[in-house]
């Protein structure tokens, strides 16, 4: 093997160390050079990528896929049934009451919107920062974003008392009075924030898909399949010109999407921060929500990637080094979230406001102390395990911690929504919140919707950005025939 391609001998995760490869004497001034370990292992060639990734869209789905899809469809059915009941009977079938006017619907809404954050962050922000490791995961992370936003989007609608009038929230000229929305309300800002985010994410994702769709087309044997993917790829021809336009468009969209990563959850946090409810009315919410969203989003990406690596045998493209990079982000954001928790408590005490002070004491030590405990331990304490490199690189540990982080982040929203409302100003109006069957079924059902969409995505679209992965591969390896056959 030549000195210039140290990657050629890395065949799987076991050969990765997570540390740079040191090339003695090859530095620009004769010293050591440190290069990243390869982001694609297994000595893959360009053609291998096409085959490995596209294969899943070309063959009859595996038994595992069908089982997963069946479960997801069942949960989706549960969601549909629950929503029909909800629409027919009323919001009374779920938990909210007086004083807790918002229940798990808003919790789920913020949770899913938060999940959606990692995708855009990975595609846009990491793209702008030239992080090569994003390429292995960005496609599925973006897809995850879209589906998470789709899941999130149903909650503000179904939580309405008269959901059939949800369209009144859209400020379009109308003959209903005319009925105009109240721009003072943070809920009307949500409409703009979420729809913009959903739209830009979709465009960004789709633009990124174009070259890969063309690859699928090129590999297609059936004429209809060829036609379909040709249409989907907008007739991509791979010309220099096309690539140039594509790269510019992708860069512009990345620049466009980057502020959205921060704005959407900021605006979602305004739903709470602009109210007068103690525990909601805090200026820390925008950064706290954004960090929390990135935190939960990466946890979800780790969860999904762990499954994809194993089920679709993509370990060569999504290496343990990818996972470790994400684990580091989780550790960082987890500490930031923990810092936010501490700050909240400090401010509650420092403000001298009894309302504020009480609500935080009540959060941690009141009747919902258990949810605060879950939130705090899952979000602030457990990610500290990632200080240990061994744990960062252990897929099983990663998977468990990622799920715990998602549980913790769901409970963070639960703590914010429920515990702030259940005991506010007048003790006479205090109350408790209980989740009903339908709270659970709609929460689970939203996962059903998410996984149904995700499973369809991996079935019909290339789940790894092939063109981008090719861009970060060492051409010396990718173009050389390493193995016969």
């Amino acid at each position, binding site marked *: 093997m030549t000195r210039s391609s140290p990657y050629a001998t890395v065949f799987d995760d076991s050969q990765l160390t997570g540390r740079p490869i040191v090339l003695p004497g090859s530095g620009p001034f004769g010293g050591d050079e440190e290069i990243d370990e390869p982001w694609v292992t297994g000595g893959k060639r360009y053609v291998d990528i096409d085959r490995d990734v596209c294969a899943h869209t070309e063959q009859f789905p595996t038994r595992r896929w069908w089982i997963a899809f069946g479960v997801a469809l069942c949960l989706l059915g549960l969601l549909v049934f629950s929503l029909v*009941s909800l629409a*027919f*009977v*009323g*919001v*009374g*079938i779920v938990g*909210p*009451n*007086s*004083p*807790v*006017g*918002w229940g798990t619907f808003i919790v789920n809404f913020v949770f899913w919107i938060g999940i959606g954050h990692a995708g855009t962050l990975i595609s846009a922000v990491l793209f702008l920062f030239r992080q090569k490791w994003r390429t292995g995961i960005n496609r599925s992370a973006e897809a995850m974003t879209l589906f998470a936003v789709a899941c999130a989007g149903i909650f503000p609608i179904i*939580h*309405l*008392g*008269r*959901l059939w*009038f*949800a369209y*009144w*929230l859209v400020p379009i000229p109308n003959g209903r009075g005319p*009925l*105009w*929305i*109240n721009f*003072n*309300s*943070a*809920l*009307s800002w949500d*409409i703009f924030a979420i729809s913009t985010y959903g739209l830009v994410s979709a465009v960004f994702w789709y633009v990124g898909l174009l070259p890969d769709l063309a690859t699928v087309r090129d590999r297609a044997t059936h004429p209809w399949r060829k036609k379909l993917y040709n249409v989907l790829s907008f007739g991509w021809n791979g010309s220099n010109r096309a690539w140039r336009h594509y790269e510019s468009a992708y860069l512009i969209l990345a620049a466009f999407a980057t502020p959205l990563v921060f704005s959407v959850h900021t605006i979602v946090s305004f*739903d709470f921060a*602009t*109210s*007068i*409810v103690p525990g909601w009315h805090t200026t820390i919410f925008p950064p706290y929500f954004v960090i929390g969203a990135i935190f939960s989003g990466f946890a979800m990406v780790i969860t999904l990637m762990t499954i994809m690596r194993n089920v679709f045998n993509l370990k060569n493209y999504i290496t343990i080094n990818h996972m470790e990079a994400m684990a580091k982000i989780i550790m960082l954001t987890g500490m930031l979230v923990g810092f936010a928790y501490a700050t909240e408590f400090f401010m509650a*005490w420092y403000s001298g*406001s*009894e*309302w504020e*002070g*009480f609500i935080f*004491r009540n959060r941690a*030590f009141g009747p919902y102390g258990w949810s605060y405990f879950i939130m705090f331990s899952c979000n602030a304490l457990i990610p500290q395990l990632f200080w240990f490199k061994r744990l960062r690189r252990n897929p099983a540990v990663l998977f468990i911690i990622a799920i715990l982080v998602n549980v913790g982040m769901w409970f963070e929203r639960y703590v914010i929504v429920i515990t702030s*409302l259940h*005991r*506010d*100003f*007048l*003790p*006479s*109006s*205090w*109350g*408790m919140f*209980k989740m009903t069957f339908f709270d659970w079924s709609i929460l689970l059902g939203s996962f059903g919707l998410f996984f149904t969409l995700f499973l369809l995505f991996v079935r019909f679209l290339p789940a790894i950005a092939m063109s981008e992965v090719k861009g970060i591969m060492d051409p010396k390896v990718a173009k050389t025939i390493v193995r016969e056959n």
Partner: protein
Amino acid sequence: MSRKHLSPEPQASIGALAIQNDGDVPADLVTTEERVVAEMDRRDFLRVGGTLAAAAAISTAACQPPTETSVPFNERPEGLRTHGKPKHYATVVDGSPVLVRTREGRPILVTNNPDDASHRGLSLRSHAALLDLYDPDRAPGPYSVRRGKGQPVAADWQTIGTEVVGRLKKGGVALLTGPVTGPATRALIGLLEEGLGVRHVGWTPIANDAAASAWKNAFGSTPMPRPRLDSADLIVGFGAEFLEQQGLGFERDFAKRRDPNADLSRFIQIEGRLSLTGANADQRIRARDSQLGHIAAAVAHSLIVKMKLGPLAGKDEVAAALTGFVTAPGVKTETVEMLAKALAAAGTRALAMAGGAASGAASGVLLETAVALINLSLNGYDAPVFDRSLSMSPTTSNLQGLAELAVDMRAKKITTLIIAGANPIYDAPAELNFADALGHVELIVSLNDRIDETSAYADYLAPVSHVFESWGDADLGSGLFAVQQPVLRPLYDTHGLLDVLVAWGSAAGVTSNIAAAKSLVKNETTLGYHYLRRFWQTNLMRDGIEWEALLRVGEVVLQKPEPIEIFPPEPNIPFELDLSALAALNDVLEYESAVELQLYAHSALLAGAAANNGWLQELPDPITRITWGNAVSIAPRRFDDLGLRNGDLVDVTVGETTLTLPAYRHAGMAHAQIAIPFGFGRIRAGEVGNNIGTNVFGLQSIAKGRAIHSGLAASIKKNGGHEELAIGQGADVVDRVRRPIVPLTTASEFKSNPKAGTEQFSGGASAWPKHEYKNQRWGMAIDLSRCIGCGQCSIACQAENNIPVVGKKGIIDGREMWWMRVDRYYDAPKKAGGWGDDVYDAPLEVVEEPVTVFEPMLCQHCENAPCETVCPFNATIHSEDGLNQQIYNRCVGTRYCANNCPFKVRRYNWFEYSKPKTHRFFTMLFPELKRHAVLNTRGQMQLKNNPEVTVRIRGVMEKCSFCVQRIRECRAEAIRQGKDKNALPDGTVITACMAACPTEAIVFGDLNDTSSRVSALSKTPRAMRLLDSVGVQPSISYLTKVRNDKV
């Protein structure tokens, strides 16, 4: 029931009725008709009517008879019928003189009668009687009940009448009724007793027999003069409950002296269970019921023997009788001396009161006698604290009469029993075994309005009409009598009690006044009316009072009766009373698990007759806040020692009987006291009230002719089970240092600083521009010193604003719909606590000796309303006259406004309460939906709805509107009359809560009008607008509750 409605379409009959009632028959027509009929002589009458009388008795199945002329309240052009304008009728219900507001012929609201001279005010049940009228569980016609064997089958009035009349002629008939006060009704029963030998037994399940017997022992047959709480500087209550049941005028009198700027009265209450009355006391002393007699006697001993006060001082036999009472168990000697000194200092302006549930103890007669001695030695039962021109004798249960009736039924002396308005199977003491006694009677006819517990034992049910459908009368006391006139024609095939009794009596051959009444009419269904009218015109109405004029006002004052004569100079003092029972109880209480049980009248349901009324069931108990059921109240320390949580089941054993009830941690209970309210556990009240709570009437025992319902030796044991209590209120305790949300202070602090108690955190500046109010700005002032916490405002609001009933599950789930609620707080003692030192879990030091304060809570119509900014649909906005308006049509239901409301007064329609959901699948999935229909929309229930107020659909937010419909009505009226709609005189607009408040604690009006009461009140130093620190700037001012801490 096998039959739903005998009468045709309810709507149709209502419509017909509207024509009947709105087209008032001119007065002269009636008199002409009367004259013609009156000219028939008795022989003619007998010839015409005799053969028909028995058979036809009462029958309206074939034809719709004309209703007799009822006369609306005088507030509109004579004889004119204005569509869309409400009409008011003066009548009387539950002993309260009221106006019934009708729209297009159907009653929609019960409100107070401004012309009422008795000033008794309304009871909760009189407000809620409206719902009873439309109760679909009332029997729609007569039934053959067949003693509960098999399904009841429809019967007809004729058959029942024939059978009863035959029996009346034979004799051996008894008439068992509830309390009867109306003079004409009483006279009619008297006629039946005289003419036919009918035995009349009036039965009242909850009464004060002890007071009656103590009074009789001491003073013979002299009536008891009425206490004047407004003239008393010091009231000492020994388990007194004069505020529990409104409608006797005590709450008004009490509140008159609660103005801290005037001469504040002082009220000390000694009691075992924290009652509504005790909660309003300036000072409370805990002592269990059976000890109250001793304590009162010890106070009497101090006053009479030690201080030698009053006419009894120096009398040896009195001193001898009181020797045993130098000290009292349960309280310190200093306490007794303090009470005696305070009473002596107040002199003739001191008043001792008893008469609560504690008087139902075995030592009740001792208690009442001692209280009589205290009053006699201090004020001589004379002015100023007693008004001898008014009598107010204690109520009696007539348990003796009921017991004798049961004996005679078993002895077959009574072969026929007619029951009217009594339910002894449910509410008589178990010892009587009334069910068995009924088995010996040959014919039982029940005139109750449904097949209730007792009617199920009857042969026939001949349902009488609701009070709003029938003629009657009532004695308001104080020489004042009221006519009960119908407001609409019966909704069902029912007849008024008077109609039935007159018809049956006259058919059986009673002549005299009844025959005279009968001779007046062609149609038997109006017999009652003519009898009543004749009786009143002959016996009650002074010269110059027209019948129509009477009906307009609703009541008549007789000449004031002669003042009650002074009592026998040497009252007979029977002190050998009941001491043995007390000693026995003390022995029992030696054991730690033993407690004494008090059974008390529920503030809303009383003895449970109105248990099928959702409004009353859902009105929180003023102290426990429990709705939809009863619980056993346990003293906090004992409760904690037993390791209980609210709702944990406990077994309560009294004698042989054990009942299992949920436990409730009742603040301020004496340690050895437990208490359970009556009025629950009905099994045949109707779909709303069946199987709600537990019936505890059976726990009573009988001693010396009295039902003992307090001081019962009992034991309690944790059962292990749990039943969720439907309590709408969250936390009970308020820490005013941390949460200054209730203005509360003491008289001495108030004296030095009139702003005392209103201190709160300051707020920041507002970023919003101020609203401009060019004309009116509506506002309210609520005087917490006057508010007694009764909850009448809630019920009135519920009726006025079409507020649905959500049921027990709804309350448990936090889906209450009250626009107006009364919060009850226990004030945490002021202390500088550290961070984290919270009182909201009600520690013992707060709830063992609670200081109670009530705070009515409704939409505050904030200047900077937090709800307005957050609604994305603009569905809640500020009006130019200061109202925070909720626009139902525009509301889509994000509930953001409710979250952002710091007062949590916004109510959300979680379900479709206003439309029955009958989809089979979903009602199976959510049985709650069926319950909502039962509570709100079943049968013709929705006829109760106020047409001026939108009935809300599911998914929209609603809240107090300051009765905007009334504001707009008044403005429209001003426009019609050519007046300035923007300058309505103060007092023109009266909200439903303000009208209902018996103590005038609520004042509504225009804050921009500097001469209005509300603007004056909201500028006083006592005024506090809540949550300054949040900056919402409410339109409602709460005036400080000032407790009199004078020693």
